């Protein structure tokens, strides 16, 4: 028995829980719990009204069910919509005031928050359940006019900016989970880069779910003003529990004229155990608007965790000559399921989009790429290139590619390439003969398969992501 425990620990090393006293909203989805959230965050009235509008809208919406991975009905009245460590109830003003237990938690996760041990060149916003507990390098960024803070703080301090852009990419009336998020979102990051400023460091948010029976509904908003540039990265982990936990985030990006946003995700939520018990439902809405001319938004995602991953980080290419990119690695092992891809909506002239998707399935997992390329009537001379590669390990897993392509004008070009292959015995033999064991060989071959996507990640995280790719597939061959 003892051995078994140790093994599970190794499989998912972020599976621990932090024993910390927390404050929760009343259980269930109701006006009461929304008011509770808004009040505890000291939000202005317009924000509460906005939330309640979303809540009313939600009553008329149905959960979508067209996706490939099915899941048991979620009882929304059985969840807590707000949970925060008691010590963070009023946000600590400085890092010295942050509960040592939280600092310790993030240290264990490899995210040092203390001054002297911070990751160099990376500013981190740490979100624990429903609240942001700390943001590093704030002063340095402020000097350049960059705003990087928790969403709650932004609603209070930068109300005009939030009011102007929140919901402008993902409207209140969007689909079920996005609207649910608009009603009950708790925290997340807010970024504003002023005109012509190149953000001097990577901005990063680390999301941690700790409490049980709690959904995490984070909201992130990034605005890159004219001619600015920012690279942003999010990481996620959760404890091992045998219940399924819902994570329904909304991320909105806005790039104005000549601005560029690079958004990277390394998603490693708890995937459930080998028999498919527990794990996170990762139902996330991510959308970016290339609102200005020559603007660019690039999504890179490495999805290795979660019981079910269901998300389509998308680009709306409004500005002429704007560019959207989507680079994705989705790894599913054991009973994990993923239905992920992107939407590229071309509206402006000469807009370009590029989609590179690598899906890897092992065990009894199921992996679907689903994508939409929609080139509008007025989006003359636009181009899309899509490449979807699937790699299968063993014969109990599945891979599917579902591309939707709409080209409404004759001057635009759409290219789509797709391959499906099984991991090659000869490649494994070759690596073994050079002294690599089976798992090292699989890690090497899969990393090679994913290379085009991995090299899009910021340097600081590429190495971690490579290791993660190897670890996620441990025990899948042989």
């Amino acid at each position: 028995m003892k051995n078994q425990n140790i093994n599970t620990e190794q499989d998912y090393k972020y599976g621990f829980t932090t024993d910390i006293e927390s404050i929760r909203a009343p259980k269930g989805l109701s006006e009461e719990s929304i008011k509770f959230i808004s009040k505890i965050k000291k939000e202005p009235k317009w924000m509460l009204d906005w939330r309640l509008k979303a809540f009313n809208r939600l009553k008329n919406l149905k959960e979508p069910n067209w996706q490939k991975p099915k899941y048991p009905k979620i009882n929304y009245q059985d969840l807590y919509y707000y949970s925060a460590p008691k010590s963070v109830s009023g946000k600590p003003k400085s890092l010295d005031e942050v509960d040592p237990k939280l600092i310790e938690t993030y240290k264990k996760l490899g995210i040092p928050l203390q001054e002297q041990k911070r990751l160099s060149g990376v500013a981190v916003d740490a979100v624990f359940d429903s609240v942001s507990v700390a943001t590093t390098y704030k002063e340095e960024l402020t000097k350049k006019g960059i705003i990087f803070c928790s969403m709650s703080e932004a609603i209070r301090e930068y109300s005009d900016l939030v009011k102007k852009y929140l919901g402008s990419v993902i409207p209140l009336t969007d689909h079920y989970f996005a609207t649910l998020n608009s009603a009950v979102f708790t925290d997340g990051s807010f970024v504003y880069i002023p005109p012509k400023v190149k953000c001097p460091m990577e901005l990063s948010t680390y999301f941690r779910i700790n409490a049980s029976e709690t959904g995490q509904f984070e909201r992130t908003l990034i605005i890159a003003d004219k001619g600015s540039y920012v690279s942003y990265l999010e990481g996620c982990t959760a404890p091992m529990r045998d219940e399924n936990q819902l994570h329904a985030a909304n991320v909105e990006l806005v790039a104005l004229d000549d601005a560029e946003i690079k958004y990277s995700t390394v998603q490693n939520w708890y995937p459930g155990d080998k028999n498919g018990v527990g794990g996170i439902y990762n139902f996330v809405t991510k959308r970016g608007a290339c609102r200005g001319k020559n603007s660019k938004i690039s999504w890179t995602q490495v999805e290795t965790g979660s019981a079910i991953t269901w998300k389509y980080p998308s680009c709306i290419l409004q500005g002429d000559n704007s560019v959207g990119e989507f680079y994705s690695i989705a790894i599913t092992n054991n009973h994990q399921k993923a239905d992920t891809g992107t939407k590229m909506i071309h509206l402006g002239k000469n807009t370009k989009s590029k989609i590179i998707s690598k899906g890897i399935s092992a065990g009894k997992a199921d992996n679907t790429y689903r994508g939409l390329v929609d080139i509008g009537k007025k989006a003359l001379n636009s181009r899309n290139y899509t490449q979807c590669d699937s790699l299968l390990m063993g014969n109990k897993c599945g891979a599917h590619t579902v591309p939707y392509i709409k080209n409404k004008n004759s001057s635009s070009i759409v290219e789509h390439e797709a391959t499906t292959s099984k991991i090659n015995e000869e490649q494994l033999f070759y690596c073994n003969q050079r002294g690599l064991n089976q798992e090292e060989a699989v890690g090497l071959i899969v990393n090679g398969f994913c290379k085009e996507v991995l090299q899009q990640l910021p340097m600081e995280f590429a190495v971690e992501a490579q290791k993660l790719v190897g670890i996620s597939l441990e025990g899948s061959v042989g």
Partner: protein
Amino acid sequence: MLKIKNLKASINNKDILKGLNINIKPGELHAIMGPNGSGKSTLANVLSGKNGYEISGELKYQGKDLKEISIDERAQKGIFLAFQYPIEIPGVNTSNFLKTSLNKVRKARGEKELDTLSFLKILKEKSSELGIDEKMLSRQLNVGFSGGEKKKNEILQMKILDPNLVILDETDSGLDIDALKIIADGVNSSRDKKKSFLIITHYQRLLNYINPNFVHVLSDGKIIKSGCMELAEELEKKGYKKIN
């Protein structure tokens, strides 16, 4: 070094090796020649531990029963197979692969793992010895390599890993005369009192450059004749059918 006694191997119920005997001492270079389908590549696969074969008989390497040892452990213990058709692995950088491989072998030998700088120094030295263009090493492993480049890459790996027992599986097939010389030079400069070689080939021409201690003729899963260089010359003149 290697002792094989009455080795039988079959795959999918088809007998391929039917009682093979060979004994290779440290410092010796043995050549195995034989027609297509005689079991040459099967012998190379069985020695390196490839899955899928039913094996019986004695298979001893440095006194240990090879049948008990996995492919990667055999490699770490110094068995090196130069592939007849080196495998392409897209997205994997050639020199990174070599470094990973070398560090695995070094670790098994109880040596310190090399950092990138000291590895690159060795790589540079060995590749210039073999006249290999360094550009090749920054490309993806074997992807888009010409036949000659692939084989040279195998010999480079052999030089860097410094194994005890080298098996060359038809490394000379399909090579032009310049590439053939590079392969031969690579083998000759590696020969010493401790290392053993098993060279599997169709033709005499590689043997002209490397001068084997023994030549064996493999036919229908058995060694039917053993001798020295003269045997290879005789084979070249008369063909396999006349030997018996």
